């Protein structure tokens, strides 16, 4: 096992108290627990405060476009399935502009770990409403209160056929890191939605607020993440936000279905021209 400092490149400059510090720490711990080499780990990020993570984390990184982390990460994973590919997004990235990609990566069950850092608004752009902003909340873009009803990532994931659906809280780093670690070990798509306070723009959903509203599924007697009906029940709870490993199932990963041979990654194929083989294909056109 490595020390988590192994992955520490720079000290972050997020606002003091930002939930992203907890996410950064949890991700380092999870990678350390799995003993992943820096060169075998790729962190793909979207656009938002979370996107700075690549600057601080020692690993290959891809800081792409707003909302497009999923297809980039899937392309990387399929070309080299030996890599540990972790995508990180915000709620705007994953559930607004990138929602289509999110659902389809889930549906395909691509072997990615998807960490969605949900602070319930657009923080980098100074605090506009996002798809997870509470109804009625006053933000920069909704001075009269948000008229949109929020959506819930883990519920969407369950409906779309997700095979590993977890929710953590950036105020509980040890718990969060164990969820990320399990997600990284999962063969298939793992969603870790994270309740993560924005201390600058969101004065409602604070650490204290979350502490009062979360409920750990591990504490529910007899909770079994294999039970889909039960998962729906905890996700639909009117007052409590379920955290922990909510749902898990075994299903073949996309790369195991699509790639001819996972032991021969596309990344290291010999591309030499086999003229004889190509000529045989050419015969079809004669």
């Amino acid at each position, binding site marked *: 096992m490595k020390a988590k400092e192994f992955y520490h490149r720079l000290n972050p400059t997020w606002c003091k108290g930002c939930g992203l510090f907890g996410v950064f720490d949890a991700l380092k711990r999870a990678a350390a627990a799995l003993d992943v080499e820096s060169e075998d780990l790729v962190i793909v990020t979207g656009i938002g405060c979370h996107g700075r993570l690549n*600057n601080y984390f020692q690993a290959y990184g891809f800081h792409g*476009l707003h909302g*497009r982390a999923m297809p*980039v990460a899937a*392309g*990387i994973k*399929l070309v080299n399935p030996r890599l540990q590919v972790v995508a990180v997004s915000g709620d705007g990235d994953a559930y607004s502009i990138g929602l289509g990609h999110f659902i389809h990566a889930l549906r395909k069950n691509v072997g990615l770990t998807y960490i969605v850092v949900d602070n319930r608004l657009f923080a980098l752009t100074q605090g506009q409403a996002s798809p997870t902003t509470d109804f009625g909340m006053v933000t920069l873009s909704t001075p009269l209160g948000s008229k949109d009803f929020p959506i819930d990532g883990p519920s969407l994931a369950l409906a779309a056929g997700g095979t590993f659906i977890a929710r953590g809280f950036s105020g509980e780093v040890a718990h969060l890191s164990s969820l990320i670690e399990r997600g990284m070990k999962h063969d298939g798509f793992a969603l870790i939605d994270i309740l993560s306070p924005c201390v600058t723009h969101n004065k409602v959903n604070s650490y204290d607020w979350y502490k009062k509203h979360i409920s750990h599924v591990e504490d529910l007697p007899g909770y079994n993440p294999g039970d889909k009906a039960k998962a729906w029940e905890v996700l639909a709870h009117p007052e409590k936000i379920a955290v922990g490993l909510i749902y898990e199932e075994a299903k073949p990963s996309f790369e195991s279905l699509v790639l001819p041979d996972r032991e021969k990654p596309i*990344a290291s*194929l010999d*591309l030499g021209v086999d003229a004889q083989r190509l000529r045989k294909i050419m015969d079809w056109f004669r």
Partner: protein
Amino acid sequence: MIKDLSVMIAGKAGDGVLFTGNVLAKLLKRHGWEIVTSRDFPSNIRGEATCYTVRASLDKIYGLGDQVNILLAFDCEAILAHLPEIAENGIVFCDGEGVQTPSPEQARGKTFHRLFLRALAKERFGQEIFKNVMALGALSYVLDLDPSLLDGIISEMFLKRKGEEVVRKNTEAARTGFEKAREITAEKECHPLTRRPDENRVLISGDEAIGFGALAAGCRYFAAYPICPASEIWQWLVHYLPDFGGAVVQTEDELAALNMALGASFAGARAMTSTSGPGASLMMEAFSLAGMAEIPVVIAHVQRLGPATGMPTKSQQGDVLQWIFGSHGEFPRIVLAPGTVGECFDLTVGAFNLADKYQCPVIILTELDMGQNFRTSRAFDFSQVAIERGKFLSPGELLGIPDFKRYEITDDGISPRSLPSWKNGVHLVESLEHDEKGYRDEDPLNRNRMVEKRMRKLDHASPDLFAPRTWGCQKADVGFIGFGSTLGAILEAMEQLRANNIPSRFLQLRTLWPFPAAEVRQFLAEIREPFVVEHNFSGQLATLIKSQISPCVELKNILNYSTRPFIPGDIVEPVLRSRR
């Protein structure tokens, strides 16, 4: 002796026009003739008028002719619609009862026959579908084709998939059609085609040739979203890439397709996507990312008629400027435009090498007419295919570099690459402006250095790019400039003009960007009357030339923005008019 012949199969969508046309094209190709096909289809599955033209010639041809010699109509309404295209001594076969007799002046010189193929097929073979092979049999008689060649194609199509009985019935149906035509036509109506050797030639569409080029060039990751008329590239590759160790992935949209190709390329694959106008618009965002992050990628864009959804099954050259000036910000890109199916193959192979060498997006711009129609070509020469992956460090070399800089500022602007999983190669691909290691950097001086580095990558690329090709007379007053599938009509227009004692030259642009300014400037200096030929409304290529050549002589546009690609007459006529 017949040297050139066009046969049109017409009917309603669902009538088997596509099947009949495809087989006829292959049959004539096997007789050693040069072939160009053209499909004119509506964007639906069943019910609307469609037609498929097969042109065969003893000379090398690249496009359609001006006239149709034989029309075989499964649907009699088609006859009146296509009558103006039919040659003086043309023959019209109509299947069925409903033929409306054309007026005597329309019908002059042409002969009309009824075939009743449907009824005959049902009576003899129990199913109407046999009418298609019967029609091919009838055409075999009129064109004096070798029946064994049609039998051979039938056997290739059906023996493995459907068994001997189906082959037997179809061969018999072909014979029935042959006899029927013999019965009803006069001998003077025959258009006998001489058979020539069919050696080392193929009949292939532009889309297939691009797919083939990608396969040969080592493309092993292909991501795309279905769109007409580009899907055939994917539908061809999907049969081969897995066997070569690669993957073809259908994405949720074109945003995902290009982003996924970029992820795949970053991880080490030669990656590609294909699309048409609406998908290209969605790809503009990731196109810019490819430029900023310097990720090699190949994008095939098969143009269709726009704007918006436009007409998905009609050809056009209306998206020329989209890739050249498109997307936000400034970054280098290469736009190639093949004019023949052979070039579709060669330029695709070249596109992958250029993308790797210059670490930038490369676009292969064609159009529906090139992409979906079939043309004969010499079989592709794989011994000429070389795979050059550019400035890749090896994992071994990286071990000796303690401070690897993925975006190192170099004289030629091109920086070394490493791949995820390679030790010492850790870096960030950053869509924000970044430093030499890839990390975000907002320093104004760094910004200037990085934009200059990226933009100078193509400064000395011209020897690697596909130079314009010059066709026609060395000394000529009339000159044409064009690109893509208008080549066929331009070359034949030049022949017709020569018959009118008007020699002409043609500069075929094969790289549209970086713009081949030196060659175009020289061409314009050598001719008196330059015509820019394009299949669009506003003259996008002419606009491009004027923006890149200054001062520029007066350019005359020959434009066609109709649903039908150019025929030679569309080009000859304005030239003659300008000299009157």
